């Protein structure tokens, strides 16, 4: 059995490990356009301020340690599902019996004047991170365009190197997908105290440059912010272009069933290039989360090995991080838009908690500061547990923690 896997990140590696464990006879080929060794993507902000070395963010076990895995440092440019081959940029066709698509997503590069100037970067992979790390030598001011989680993480890391950082966010608040207005305000204030400048309700209109080198950013509001370095962290889009003509159905991203099979038999997909159905909001969205990529990779790996498996219920909003020394965990429906939902909040010093209910079901939550036992409550959200009479006790339990701190 010839297994071919496109992509070399967490979804790909998880699937590969499952296949290796379950099919001793398997021949596995991996195609990835980033060179080995493979690394933990979410840790690249730590390369910028050198708080982690490249070695310290690598997977401890590399898939290529297994001699049954043949690695191609190449890019997949097409899939021919009738002939069962994929086309590579280097020209060679690669035949498969079972194919996994795990090509993730790429940074969006906004189409604004000056975006091609030196000193302007998108930042999602190791290569880009190392370039930015080098560019930081002698850099005094930086602008990060995009104040969502990845943008803020990068901004904090730049700031730790002594660079003066300005963040520009088009929404009225930073961290629009993981925070409500209250939490975002608290975070902005903490970041501000650490010297970060934050402009919300604004976005980049033009990159200013002299002799092709970036000197600043002009915002839609008309403000101009000087900068030696500009990071564009405005979002990602799934890498689906190479699937044109393959017969693999896509909508916002690749469509799969619960077993991670695409519309084409023997072709599976996993990770950030896949569209998921959110168990709580009922919306179809692009995944974008590490844990979801692991679940999808594992499920695809089992089914590709001939062992039936289905994915668990997914949440598209399910985040945990620490920003400016304040931990935040949020999950589910955190921006309730209708009267149908009841919201409970409690604050104590730096700590803040919010619970969102749909009748007796917990559907969303935010814990800021004290994050004790967050997973217990998220489990109720994910599995849509009807709490009945236990609801009031649960609210008391969650909120009373703050008064005893």
């Amino acid at each position: 059995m010839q297994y071919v896997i496109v992509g070399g990140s967490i979804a790909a590696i998880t699937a590969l490990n499952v296949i290796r464990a379950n099919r001793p006879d398997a021949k596995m080929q991996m195609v990835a356009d980033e060179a080995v060794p493979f690394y933990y993507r979410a840790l690249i902000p730590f390369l910028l301020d050198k708080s982690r070395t490249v070695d310290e963010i690598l997977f401890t076990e590399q898939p290529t340690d297994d001699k049954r895995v043949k690695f191609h440092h190449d890019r997949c440019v097409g899939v021919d599902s009738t002939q069962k081959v994929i086309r590579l940029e280097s020209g060679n066709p690669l035949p498969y019996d079972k194919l996994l698509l795990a090509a993730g997503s790429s940074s969006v590069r906004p189409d604004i004047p000056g975006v091609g100037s030196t000193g302007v970067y998108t930042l999602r992979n190791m290569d880009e991170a190392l370039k930015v790390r080098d560019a930081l030598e002698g850099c005094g001011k930086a602008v990060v365009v995009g104040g969502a989680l990845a943008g803020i993480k990068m901004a904090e890391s730049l700031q730790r190197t002594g660079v003066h950082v300005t963040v520009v966010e088009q929404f009225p608040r930073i961290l629009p997908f993981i925070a409500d207005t209250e939490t975002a305000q608290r975070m902005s204030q903490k970041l501000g105290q650490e010297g970060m400048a934050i402009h919300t309700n604004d976005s980049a209109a033009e990159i200013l440059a002299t002799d092709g080198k970036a000197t600043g950013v002009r915002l839609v509001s008309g403000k101009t912010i000087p900068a030696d370095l500009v990071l564009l962290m405005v979002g990602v889009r799934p890498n689906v272009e190479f699937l044109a003509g393959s017969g693999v159905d896509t909508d916002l991203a690749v469509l799969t069933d619960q077993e991670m099979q695409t519309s084409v038999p023997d072709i599976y997909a996993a990770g950030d290039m896949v569209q998921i159905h959110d168990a709580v909001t009922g919306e179809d969205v692009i995944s974008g989360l590490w844990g979801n990529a692991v679940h999808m990779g594992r499920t695809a790996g089992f089914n590709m090995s001939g062992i039936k498996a289905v994915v668990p219920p997914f949440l598209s909003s399910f985040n945990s991080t620490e920003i400016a020394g304040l931990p935040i965990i949020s999950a589910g429906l955190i921006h309730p838009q209708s009267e149908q939902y009841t919201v409970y909040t409690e604050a104590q010093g730096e700590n803040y908690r919010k619970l969102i209910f749909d009748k007796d079901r917990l559907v969303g939550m935010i814990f800021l500061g004290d994050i004790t036992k967050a997973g217990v409550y998220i489990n109720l959200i994910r599995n849509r547990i009807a709490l009945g009479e236990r609801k009031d006790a649960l609210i008391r339990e969650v909120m009373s923690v703050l008064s005893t701190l």
Partner: protein
Amino acid sequence: MEVIYVQADRCLGCKTCEIECRIAHTDTDTENTLFAAVSQLRPPKRRLFVEQGEKGKTPVICRHCEEAPCIVECISGSIYRDEQGFVRRKKERCIGCWSCIMACPFGVVVRDAEAHIAVKCDHCPDLDTPACVTGCPTKALQLVDVDSLPQERRKELLLKKEV
């Protein structure tokens, strides 16, 4: 595989297990004692929790789940399964993103704010029997071999999703 089995009806809520846990996880060059634990600049965190259950006090402890959500969500390669099958954390790999706390449905991974790392039960790898089990005066905590238990009891002990 031997796991810690909790018999809630035997628990008196004395918290000896919590104290023994802290002592066992004290970072000293000398013998681990209660005195050494409390005289630490940063006293060790407990890794199990005596809580009010439905019928009374009960110790809540990591189950070293077969499909451990904390391993799934760990974005830094810090949480892993050791050769004995226990779910552990590599200190130096932890970045303090708290994804494991977000993931754990039992609420038994905690934040060490000073050290900026997540802390969880490691099943005391250097001891024959975990400290909490040895210390429990009422045998509410016992070490049992899961493989010798019937299937239903196994499922209760280990969070096992159908694959």
